[in-house]
């Protein structure tokens, strides 16, 4: 059944896929061998770009229909941070989580409850919120992480719904009306947090940079290698002495903390939150961002989240049709490049190892992917 996949290379979609793949893979081959100073320059440039991003000059192109700085905070910034968090769970440890929005909701509700009912300020709640979501990650993880694959997926989906419906049915936290008058953060370094989105954007940017550095260090550590082993073959990892359950729980724990952090920051800006802010479709969208960008590769995941948050806003001119187009685009993207825009290098090498040479060009890597027998789909 796969024998004819190479014959289909005359297909225009295939040609487009190879062109796009060729460029991104070329850039990444350069990046892998780039000297340290070049990398630091790129990092510095990227951070500088993020700092000047809210300017009107950029905004007038990026977002002609709505306020650009607000968009940069939410959805763009929040999606990026959520995607980095979900990437730890899905991309690195290979655990399919369909209820990630639950942790975001718990973080946001922690901010709302402590802020309105107990009069706490933002900074202590930030710590408490991260702690609460980390605990909820363990509560969800410890009974369910013994399940595998699709069973885990449906249980996490259920958890996301349980959190949302519980918030909806509990009068103490406002029921379906939600919570209003959530306090803004206290001024820090002389910066006031009020209605202007800019300070929140920089706060979120700082959080993103810290979390990305943290996640990258983690990926390169013993923990990251353990996750990779679990992702590729859980049984083999267990046999090699990796305590798989402990590391899977750790992935949930860290992913949950990042989700909670996003929720706390987001709630402190929006003043009012309601249960419908945390629907399943948000979990699905963040997961789409992770897979679209290249599950397991941080830059890819961040680009994926940016595109998924930004494109529907950019094309607000199409009014309602943007969600429809979003759905169709997901199907098309997966058909064109199922491994994502920027898949992790190491996995690409594994994929092309089925071909002739381990470090071949992108095109032969793709062909090797197409030649794999059907049941590898299942892995």
């Amino acid at each position: 059944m796969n024998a004819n996949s190479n014959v289909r290379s005359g297909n225009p979609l295939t040609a487009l896929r190879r062109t796009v793949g060729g460029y991104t893979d070329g850039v990444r081959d350069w990046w892998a061998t780039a000297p340290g100073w070049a990398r630091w320059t790129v990092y510095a440039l990227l951070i500088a770009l993020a700092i000047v991003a809210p300017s009107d000059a950029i905004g007038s192109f990026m977002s002609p229909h709505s306020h650009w700085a607000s968009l940069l905070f939410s959805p763009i910034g929040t999606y990026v941070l959520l995607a980095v968090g979900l990437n730890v769970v899905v991309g690195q440890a290979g655990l399919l989580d369909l209820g990630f929005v639950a942790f975001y909701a718990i973080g946001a509700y922690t901010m709302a409850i402590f802020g309105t009912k107990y009069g706490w300020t933002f900074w202590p709640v930030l710590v408490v919120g991260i702690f609460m979501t980390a605990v909820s990650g363990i509560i969800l993880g410890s009974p369910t992480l013994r399940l595998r694959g699709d069973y885990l997926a449906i249980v996490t989906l259920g958890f996301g719904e349980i959190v949302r419906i519980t918030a909806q049915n509990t009068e103490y936290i406002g029921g379906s009306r939600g919570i209003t008058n959530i306090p803004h953060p206290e001024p820090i370094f002389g910066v006031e947090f009020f209605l202007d989105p800019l300070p929140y954007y920089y706060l979120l940017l700082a959080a993103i940079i810290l979390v990305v550095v943290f996640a990258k260090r983690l990926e390169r550590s013993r923990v990251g290698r353990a996750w990779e082993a679990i992702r590729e073959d859980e049984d083999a990892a267990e046999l090699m002495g990796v305590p798989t359950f402990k590391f899977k729980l750790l992935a949930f724990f860290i992913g949950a903390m990042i989700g909670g952090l996003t929720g706390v920051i987001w709630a402190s800006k929006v003043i009012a939150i309601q249960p419908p802010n945390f629907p399943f479709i948000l979990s699905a969208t963040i997961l789409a961002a992770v897979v679209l960008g290249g599950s397991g590769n941080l830059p890819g995941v961040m680009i994926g989240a940016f595109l998924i948050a930004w494109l529907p806003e950019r094309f607000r001119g199409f009014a309602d049709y943007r969600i429809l187009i979003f759905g169709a685009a997901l199907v098309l993207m997966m058909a064109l490049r199922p491994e994502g825009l920027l898949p992790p290098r190491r996995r690409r090498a594994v994929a092309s190892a089925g071909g002739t040479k381990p470090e071949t060009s992108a095109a032969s890597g793709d062909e090797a992917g197409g030649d794999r027998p059907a049941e590898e789909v299942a892995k």
Partner: protein
Amino acid sequence: MLNDFINQVGPSTVGGLASGAIYALIALGYTMVYGVLRLINFAHSEIFMIGSFAALFVINLMGITGPLSGIALVGTMLLLLLASMAASGGAAVVLERVAYRPLRRRGASRLAALISAIGASIFLQELFALVIIPEVFDRPSQGRNQVPVPRLFDRETVFSIGNTDIRNDHLFIIVAAVAMMILLDVFVNRTKIGRGIRATSQDPETAVLMGVNIDSIIRTTFFVGGAMAGVAALLYAMEFENLRFNVGFLLGVKAFTAAVLGGIGNLRGALLGGLMLGLIENWGSIFFGSEWKDVIAFTVLVLVLLFRPTGILGESLQRARA
């Protein structure tokens, strides 16, 4: 509290079995596709939605506005059943062709297939909300509102057990669902195509070597699973008399829960899981109130999986697997 329970246990058992039968019919689609492709067909809920609107389309086409009876009712029901089964089954085949087969050919990961399915699901929901409901069902700018379905037959009590009245609509749902299940069970276990489906789910490579045309088997599986969702869609439209563009979402999640509960990939498990889920939800609502229904369902799922990680009847890879 206990008195409440004793008073309500009869009616909620009947209601639970009826909604459980609908869950079970939808669960069959998930479980069959999972059996052959090891894939959660996330857009199956939209296959259900398409079937329910197809039934409504035919109702409108025939100009039915009030309850029917006698031979007209039987004829209409059969026609509606055909329409919703054909629409859902056809949509499932198209979905497989567009959203899954290109990925399968390229050996993409299951995660990619899941995202493709979620994309298709979003697309179909929006297509109905933006185009089909406003245009075809003549509800301009109300694509996201509920669409009422006219009542097809008068609801009356057929017989009573103790203080529990058994209504004809509930009875119809349960009988229709169980009959469909038996038909499907025979189809999978006794026919040649059914043997192909079982062979593919056990070992696709060997099945190919034995001369099974996998592409055709997968297409058939999608069609049959979709047609079952079509039956469920007609029963749902008849019972609840309100449709929406996202009517499939919660039902789909519940049905997948039912499939997992019974043991995914296992046809009889889907029936058992569906009925159990319906019963537990409705019994639980007596104690906790109906707003906690969904929480109860998911909590039961977590508890069952803790003790039986492959569902109640197990995946039963070798035997009953579809």
